[in-house]
């Protein structure tokens, strides 16, 4: 009995990473998936998952957990439990740090995998998808149930915004026994999760399911209410012990060049939101009519939002899609200036890219030209980057100008900060030089006002928002208990 049982308790399999290769998630075939907005990923089978967990080495220093994951998910422990088939505990473990693993399991870029020790000289453990599978299994088995608090504290908290930060904060606060009301100015709860992320990455029933859980735990939702406008600050102050701002960082970065005023130059988020509404059967108005069907689309900005635009435009039936990025084309492997375990600047190809688009690097947009109110051409040039004393410098090589014909231009150059109009202004909060709401341990310049997520940090990842929401909730809980 003493022999042979070794592998049962030992982490994964010794040298499992030598035995099994990383097996990435599959996708539905391009031809099939561009015809609809359904999720594109194809989950692995349980056997495959078992093998993938066997690759985890249970490092003495798990960089995935300690350096990669903003939520500090206990990745080695979770992998081990899955490896041993103890899914229920894995599910419990996962939820002890992450409120919405079914969401992060779908949309997270997985900084944990970049930090995985195996990524140094091999392929990292398939962390994100294992997370996805745990959540999948957890819901199927009914293990993920509402956890209403044993007793209520009688304290009331308002949460402004229902994106990942707001929802995580709300759930944590409700479970600690506080009465929580989430205000959302949009028609439905979910914020960026609902309106920012395309359905082909995150179908919205996933969000709805989680919202039901929150509701069952006692969280109240007020949709279509713009706090600070529809509800006065005085009312808020009176009705709630404190408020948590979780409105994201929705102010997009604009491009101030000639011709910006053409009406078919739109911000990516407006474009994506419209499609999300369309998918959900919501009413679409204004710019919402914009569609890429049979158009030549130029997406400006090489990041994830840009990629989402590419995927959306493809599904809408675009004729040709360009994606422009001002930075040079990244290398295939990790360059020395973004060392492990940080997030590497490497060439990434998303499922949307695979669906067909032309990606151009080191390209700057100089101006737009068009006919009447519609853009017709994007005028670009090549840029070269060089490192100098004061930092990176860009140079325009002479004669590198070129023109792209365009029927639709999508601006996906990132976000600046939280929208200042409305609540922020009315609360008279201090702002930092970047335009974010500064917070000391999640508390703003107004003691009863807390903030979480992109509102304080600027635009970032969903996981970071969830983490921020959790930590803000802990700070609020502490403040409420002390108060």
């Amino acid at each position, binding site marked *: 009995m003493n022999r042979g*049982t070794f592998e049962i308790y030992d982490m994964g399999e010794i040298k499992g*990473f030598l035995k099994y290769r990383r097996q990435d998630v599959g996708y539905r075939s391009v031809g099939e998936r561009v015809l609809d907005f359904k999720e594109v990923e194809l989950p692995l089978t349980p056997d495959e998952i078992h093998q993938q967990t066997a690759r985890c080495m249970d490092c003495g220093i798990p960089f995935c957990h*300690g350096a990669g994951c903003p939520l500090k998910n206990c990745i080695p422990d979770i992998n081990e439990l899955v490896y041993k088939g103890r899914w229920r505990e894995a599910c419990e473990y996962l939820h002890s740090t992450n409120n919405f693993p079914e969401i992060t399991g779908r949309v997270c870029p997985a900084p944990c995998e970049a930090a995985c020790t195996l990524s*140094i*000289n091999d392929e990292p453990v398939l962390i994100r998808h294992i997370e996805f599978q745990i959540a999948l299994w957890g819901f199927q088995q009914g293990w993920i149930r509402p956890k209403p608090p044993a007793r209520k504290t009688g304290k009331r908290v308002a949460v402004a915004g229902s994106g990942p930060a707001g929802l995580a904060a709300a759930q944590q606060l409700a479970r600690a026994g506080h009465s929580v009301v989430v205000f959302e100015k949009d028609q439905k709860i979910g914020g960026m999760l609902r309106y920012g992320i395309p359905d082909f990455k995150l179908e919205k029933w996933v969000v709805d399911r989680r919202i039901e859980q929150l509701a069952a735990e006692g969280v109240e939702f007020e949709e279509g209410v713009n706090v600070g406008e529809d509800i006065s600050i005085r009312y808020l102050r009176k009705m709630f012990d404190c408020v948590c701002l979780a409105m994201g960082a929705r102010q997009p970065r604009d491009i101030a060049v000639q011709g910006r005023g053409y009406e078919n130059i739109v911000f990516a988020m407006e474009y994506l939101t419209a499609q999300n509404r369309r998918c959900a059967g919501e009413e679409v108005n204004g710019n919402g009519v914009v569609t890429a069907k049979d158009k030549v689309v130029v997406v400006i900005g090489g990041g994830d939002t840009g990629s989402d635009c590419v995927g959306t435009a493809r599904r809408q039936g675009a004729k040709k899609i360009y994606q422009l990025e001002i930075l040079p084309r990244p290398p295939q492997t990790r360059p020395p200036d973004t060392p492990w375990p940080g997030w590497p600047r490497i060439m990434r190809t998303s499922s949307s890219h695979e669906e067909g688009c032309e990606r151009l690097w080191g390209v700057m947009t100089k101006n737009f030209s068009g006919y009447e109110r519609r853009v017709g051409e994007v005028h670009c040039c090549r840029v070269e980057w060089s490192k100098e004393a004061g930092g990176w410098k860009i140079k325009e090589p002479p004669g590198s100008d070129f023109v792209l014909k365009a029927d639709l231009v999508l601006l996906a150059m990132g976000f600046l900060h939280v929208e200042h109009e409305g609540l922020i202004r009315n609360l008279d909060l201090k702002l930092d030089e970047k335009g974010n709401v500064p917070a000391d341990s999640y508390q703003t310049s107004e003691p009863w006002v807390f903030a979480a997520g992109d509102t304080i940090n600027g635009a970032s990842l969903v996981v970071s928002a969830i983490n921020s929401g959790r930590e803000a909730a802990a700070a609020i809980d502490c403040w409420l208990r002390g108060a």
Partner: protein
Amino acid sequence: MALKLKNQGLYETRYEHDSCGIGAVVNISGVKDHSIIEYGRQILLNLHHRGAAGADETTGDGAGILFQIPHEFFFVECEKAGISLPEPSKYGVGMVFGLKDAGLRERCDRILEDAIAYYGMRAIGWREAPVRSDCLGKIALESEPSIRQVFVDGAGLEEEAFERHLYLARRRAERLVRETFGEEGEDFYVASLSCRTICYKGMFMARQLFAYYPDLEDRRVKSALAIVHQRYSTNTFPSWRLAQPFHCIAHNGEINTLSGNRSWMRAREPKMSSGLLPACACPHADRGDNICDLLPVLSPEMSDSACFDSVLELLVRAGRSMPHAMMMMIPEAFGLKYHISTDKRAFYEYHSAIMEPWDGPAAMVFTDGRLIGGTLDRNGLRPCRYLVTTDGLAILASEAGVVEFEPQRIKRKGRLRPGHMFLVDTVEGRIITDNDIKSKIARQRPYRRWLEENRIELRGLFDAPKPVQSDPETTLQRMRAFGYTAEELKMVLTPMVLDGQEPIGSMGDDTPLAVLSDRPRLLFSYFKQLFAQVTNPPIDPLREGLVMSLMTFTGRRRNLLDETPQHCRQLKLPHPVLANQDIERLRAVNRADFKAATTRAVFDADTSDAGGSLRRGLDLLVANAKKAISDGASLIIISDREISESKAAIPSLLAVAAVHRGLLNEGLRGEAGLIVESGEPREVMHFCLLCGYGANAINPYLAFECLEQLQRSGEAPADMEQTAAADNYIAAVKKGILKTMSKMGISTLRSYSGAQLFEAIGLNGPFIDKYFTGTSSRISGIGLEEIAQEALARHKAAFEIRAGGAMELEFGGEYHFRNSGERHLWNPVTVSRLQHAVINNDAKAYADYAVAVNDQSRKLCTLRGLFEFIAGEPVPLEEVEPASEIIKRFCTGAMSHGSISKEAHECIAVAMNRLGAMSNTGEGGEDPARYTPEPNGDSKSCGIKQVASGRFGVTVNYLANAKELQIKMAQGAKPGEGGQLPGHKVTDEIARLRYSTPGVTLISPPPHHDIYSIEDLAQLIYDLKCGNPEARVSVKLVAEVGVGTVAAGVAKGNADEVLISGHDGGTGASPLSSIKHTGCPWELGLAETQQVLVMNGLRDRIRVQVDGQLKTGRDVVVAALLGAERFGFGTAALVTLGCTLLRKCHEGACPFGIGTQDPQLRSRFRGKPEYIERFMNFVAEEVRRIMAQLGLRKFEDMVGRVDRLGVRKAIEHWKARGLDFSAVFRLPDTSGGKAIRQTNGQPRKIGDNLDWEILEKAKSTIENKQKILIEMPIRNVNRTVGAILSNRIVRRFGPQGLPDGTIEVVFRGSAGQSFGAFLASGVTFRLIGESNDYVGKGLSGGRIIVQTPEGSPFAAYENVIVGNTVLYGATGGEAFINGVAGERFAVRNSGATAVVEGVGDHGCEYMTAGVVVVLGQTGCNFAAGMSGGVAYVLDEAAAWGGFDTLCNLDLVELESIWHEEDKKLLKDLIERHLHRTGSARARQILDAWPDMVGKFVKVMPMDYRNALQRMRAAEHRDTETTPATEEVFR
């Protein structure tokens, strides 16, 4: 005695050690003659090398002689002084060391005379003993006492009674002087007071003893017997009174369990009484039968040997015979593996209910004036050889050949075997054999029947553990209350349950000390295990476990000085772990003479005054325990089962210590056994601590419930029987306790119990003094208040409502990093920044790293984090010594090729050689190919070559290619244990370098089998200096309290450098409990070492190195200021090569090709020498910047400047603020120009080696390989003959040496230790005579022949001709031994061929290659740990059980000799033996070969056979390209 030892700084006198040479000589018929004294003198002079000299090289550590009162001499001398002596034996003589102050001396004299009168005798006069003070060394002279003899008239008392009365009078005088004068009277000392014997001793080197006392040279001084002693002390302030012999004994060794023995003696005192020792009438007597002149039996200033002597004397005076008392105090092992009689076993078992063994290495010679004898401890850890002459003389001594006789005069030669006794009765005029003595004593009372009728038998009371009835609902809650973590379940308990083994880990410890941790830590974690290093050896619990025992008796103890059947009316436990069922049964027992009472160990949890509440809880607990005793309980169960929301558990260690201490103080400890029933203990360390502070048995009820929990969760297989889980768990705990005891060199739990072999770190003085009295705690720290707060924090966390989603148990993070867990110095930030820095040569990234590390340590990870530099006038950076110079002081840690890959090992060597610094081979040998430089000028040869207990690949060529030779006494991660290399790392290549078998796990012996004491270490240092006269020798120690005194001993042993390792150092594989709980931070060990070396005036001649988690320049500077001159980096160097601390080295699964031997993984190695070079540069530059700030230009100016270190102001941490570093920062007294760093070297001591003479004679041979035959005499003082010669041969001719038989040297006489050490090929040594220990140590291809001289009257095969530990670590060559060898013949033999005519215990232990033929008897435990090679043993013992009962069959199989191959090999070897030695035994065997061959047994290691088969199979596969090994390690 002007120089008195005082505790100062980190130095504590009680950690002094000594060790020695001893001897006894007797005329068996009792004929008195001066020649006996003369022989004593010869013995001492010839044991001179076993003693040591102090810093002045003329003060010895102590020598003395004890012999019969020379009546003829005294009669005349006393006449002259006007004293008229009565008949012999009608008067007694006292040897009195008096105070220098005449007035005080006078008053002491009166007290002594009054005491004599008090017991009805009369002092009839004083004689000034003539002395020649001018022969003394400076230090001895300063402390010289007045030495006088007092003569006592026995007033007609019969001899025994007279002796007893003198004893009482002496004890009375000692007591009264102590009471009257206190410290002032400390120098009053009665060296002997007896009507039979007298003792002359003092602070001498051997030769000074006789020069100092002219009496001893007077031919009228005659005696029939004498015992002599020569001391080697670790300090240079030995006092006169510590010289031996004492009143009855001379001791070579060390009593490790002294602290426990002291406590238990105190516990026994209240019940002591004896009809022979009359009641005292003194007014202090508070009870009728008091013998208060004798109390306390042991006083604090007594050394271990003195304590032993004192108790032995008490037992003897109270009526037991001296051999009987010896058997009680040093019982031999009586486990079932020993062939001993039932009565003898019963005798030992009965006495184990009365007294715990005084455990530790011991060779004792003893005498009562009529009987004289010697005995060895159960492990036989000190050599003791004897000879008997045809004219009735017997000589017993630490070495053979101390007195030379012509061969014809020697009737018999032998050695004392472990646990055996040698006795001569001068009245009966005969030698009494071990068996005769012991059988007689064992049958003098019906001990066996007494035991059978009285002992409370386990089997009647308990069954095998049954499934636990627990309350699963609250299990997790209670686990939280006792601080269980998820990590503990996974990493500690699960392996224990599944495998019955302690879990293994790697890469050391980088978490904070308990006192620096923010997390509430268990009280257990404030203690560190002590361990044996140098001054006594650890025991080998794995291979020599048969000497160890966990059996205990517990219950009420009775009068020590009497023996009755009721003495063993106690509960006998086979081990100290009680299952949950057991304790319920115990509770139910209720007999008039045996019942158990339960006391509750809880305190109020609802309180704002945590400390007060805990104190009240403790007081109540102790009061209840006392009450239970007065109600008649003989077992007290200290229980925390009844915790609740309002009642928290008292930390179990505190509870047991408080009760133990409380009962001791009241004189009640002997009345009852203590059993702990607690939810807290689960790890091995916990059990050890509880036992060490007084628990007799432990029921870890929650740990058992936890096993259920593991099954419920699926961690342990559900089909595993609950009882099997419990059995495995208990088995793991038992193994762990044995291992912990063994580290301290202790064999039995009975003597470990209460011995307090721990030091505390971070507990304050008042707290320690109250509950853990006598434990060292050197930097103060927290007390009851904080401990209560920690307990309550855990308690509250268990009972408060937790936020939804949180896990039931916290992870912990003690072993693996977790964000929410314990802090680690190596964490994602430090590892990644350092790697970035060295890969991209990025100084900024290094700075980030250094800040992160230094800040981490400021965030209280390490003691040095609490220090700050005291700035001086800054100097410009350019003026500071360049980095390239500083780097030369750096070395890398001892990481063997084996634990790490070839690629990593060579990369480190290349880097360090480029820098002019040194890398270290570690304990794994080195490929000779690396001695040739690379074409590009790089060298892969490690500067430092390590010599560890496994002696892997330690050939003379290895030694010859070293710049420095390092003796690894201990390793930071697992001091007291041997290195481990898991089988999957032993590839073909590794096996070749280590001379072992591929695929077979290598565990090195815990001790160096040639270092059982400090004088042995001096011997090995001498050996290595001979093996390479140009290399420096360093000794690696691990920091623990007392390491400074060991270092002083090392300095006296002539080492050039001492390395102090921190407890936190890395490792490739080590039990987790060792990584976490053994040793102390280097800051403490280094500071202590520096202080003690300076105090002793030894610092100038020895360099000090430090290692253990050194990471930055700041670390280096702190270490330098504390006294280090060199610095070792281990883990940090690996991190630069890509290690990210997976802590998987022990699994060989390193994905970076470092801690692995898997070719697939090794190919992933991406480290470069440049990375290490850059790291060393960065560190040196950081050092320079700090030096500039401190205003120091030269590195050497920093060394030892503790005045430039201070403690950070305003330490806010709630636990750390109680720390006090004044002892660490104490500047040692440097008066008299004592150096604080190395300024000179060690004196060269190999100049008088016999080899120089041989080399001179063999000059032409060394030039041109001419054959030569040399003859010369040899004596026991000629040590390590052959090593220098061999060094010169391999330096000239390379590892292959000379052609066979080129040089032959014939010696006649008794050779000293290490005869033929490292003998190279082409040399034959023929010794006609005998030899001491370590013959053929590290034999490297040469041939050794030891033959009995022609004309010896005895049969060679019945007599001992060579000592212990022959052929240790031999890698090649042959030995033919024409006689019997001692213990551990061919231990770690890895290639030599040997024929011998009989061996002692543990023959062929740990052997990995070679062939051994034994033509006679073997001792027990043959072939333990033997994984390679073959042995053939002549099994003539079939009549009484056969060889298989003596052989350890764990790894080997016994086969008959039927293969022609075997027959031929065996016969050939025996023929060669005959040819070489002329052995009569060999001739006999060959003459009857067809009959005899059938009596041989072949000892074949199973793994070896398998490996051979695999390799053979692989060879036959012609098309197979895979090397054979891949299969082997897969």
